[in-house]
């Protein structure tokens, strides 16, 4: 207990367990449904050497990154404005909540009609999914700004901008990070959804291709690649959060 190696070792143990379960499932399931880990590994090698995996990964990451980046910028801007100008926030928040509660996939046919089947439509689908949690969390974070600290800042002669930059925004940072984490998850889901529903492309496109043609080893490679993206993005955001909230200790 307490050794810095305990958690990594336990994680390796769980990974080993999962691999064992997978190997067992590959033998137990009817033929051709669950590929063995070895077959999947070989398929990964083939896909990588042919350049298909790299190309699909690049396409998906471009859509995901663009959609998520736009959502972060626009979401923080809108949420902060709504929080900073109370009447604006009050006027808009009902509609934002309504939009956030509507399944965003429902908009896909409309988006396709408006933007076509290309990259623009895909990026917009990712954006639309990811922007809501960013707006809502930025809004709540700014609203939660401590009025006592704002009064203190005013007493030092600080103006609106200085108060915003040094008091309101740092106070809202934990909320912003939660919003971005939710956005990253939803954004990845929507990337795949967009690639399935518009012109098939990227990892989502390969998922459909291999799934529909029963090439399950290749299909598993894509599945695992998506999981890996999720892990990497979550980990990056976790490190960013740790850095931003180092003043809270632990």
């Amino acid at each position: 207990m307490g050794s810095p190696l305990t958690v990594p070792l336990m994680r390796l143990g769980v990974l080993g367990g999962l691999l064992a379960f997978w190997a067992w499932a590959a033998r137990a399931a009817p033929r051709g449904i669950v590929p063995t880990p070895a077959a999947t590994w070989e398929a990964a090698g083939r896909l990588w050497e042919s350049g298909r995996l790299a190309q699909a990964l690049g396409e998906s990451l471009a859509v995901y990154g663009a959609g998520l980046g736009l959502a972060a910028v626009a979401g923080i801007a809108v949420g902060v404005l709504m929080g900073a100008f109370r009447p604006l926030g009050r006027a808009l928040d009902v509609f934002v909540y309504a939009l956030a509660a509507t399944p965003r996939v429902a908009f896909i046919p409309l988006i396709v009609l408006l933007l076509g089947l290309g990259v623009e439509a895909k990026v917009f689908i990712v954006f639309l999914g990811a922007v809501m949690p960013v707006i809502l969390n930025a809004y709540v974070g700014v609203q939660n700004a401590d009025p006592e600290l704002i009064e203190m800042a005013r007493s030092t002669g600080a103006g609106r901008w200085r108060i915003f930059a040094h008091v309101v925004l740092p106070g809202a940072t934990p909320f912003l990070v939660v919003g971005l984490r939710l956005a990253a998850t939803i954004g990845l889901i929507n990337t795949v959804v967009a690639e399935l529903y518009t012109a098939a492309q990227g990892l989502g496109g390969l998922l459909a291709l291999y799934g529909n043609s029963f090439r399950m080893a290749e299909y598993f490679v894509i599945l695992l690649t998506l999981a890996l993206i999720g892990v990497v993005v979550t980990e990056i955001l976790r490190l960013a959060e740790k850095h931003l909230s180092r003043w809270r200790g632990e």
Partner: protein
Amino acid sequence: MNLVSPASSSPLLRFDRASKTYGGRPALAEISLEIAAEEFVVFLGPSGCGKTTLLSLAAGLIAPSSGRVELAGAPPVPGRRSAMVFQSFRLLAWKTARENVAFALPHLPAAERRARADRYLELVGLTRAAESYPRALSGGMKQRLALARALAAEPEVLLMDEPFASLDAQARELMQQEVLRLTERRPMTVLFVTHSVDEALFLADRIILLSPRPGRVAEEIRLPFARPRWAEDPRAHPEHAALRAHLWERLREMVLKDPQSDFYGRDAT
């Protein structure tokens, strides 16, 4: 001892029939006061006497509903000539001790700002905590940091709103001495709000007793004790006990007569 010559008799801070109402409820009613440069004035009064409102007016954080407040002949502007210390410290948790002090000094170039922050951290004995975040500091250290932040701006007027009320008895006494030491070193005008008779008697040149709902000046007392205060403990002064008893009696009376007080009407006699 400050002798104000008749020629320069215009006060630094002036309240001229200043009133403040919040949503129709009066908080302060027709306060008229003159405070000279380098005077240490303590406002003493029960809850609801508008002490905090009075300091906010002096800081320029709020404007009077009627009447006038003037600092050096003009309406006060926040941060211009005054700095404030609050009961709840109000430190920025995401800034180190040094950054918290530097926050009050945006007008200085970076190098100078840092040097000034370090100088005031040293003055309050927090040099070793310069890189610490507030959560790592004790209550007394937090209030010393808040004091350093206010002093670093080198204000003419220091506004202190029950600054030591949330400290334990020992830390409070040490902080009171600290304030006297620091204001002796670099003279400034101090407006100090407190509930505590003893704190008022220890610190003040002049005590202004406020009565509640709405806040009014009930009595002004110029204290006969010498400065600096550590030269002679005012508690040993023959008039100390009489003043203390008098102030306590006035406060008790106000609290018992205030319908909003927990002790309303509970007169034992």
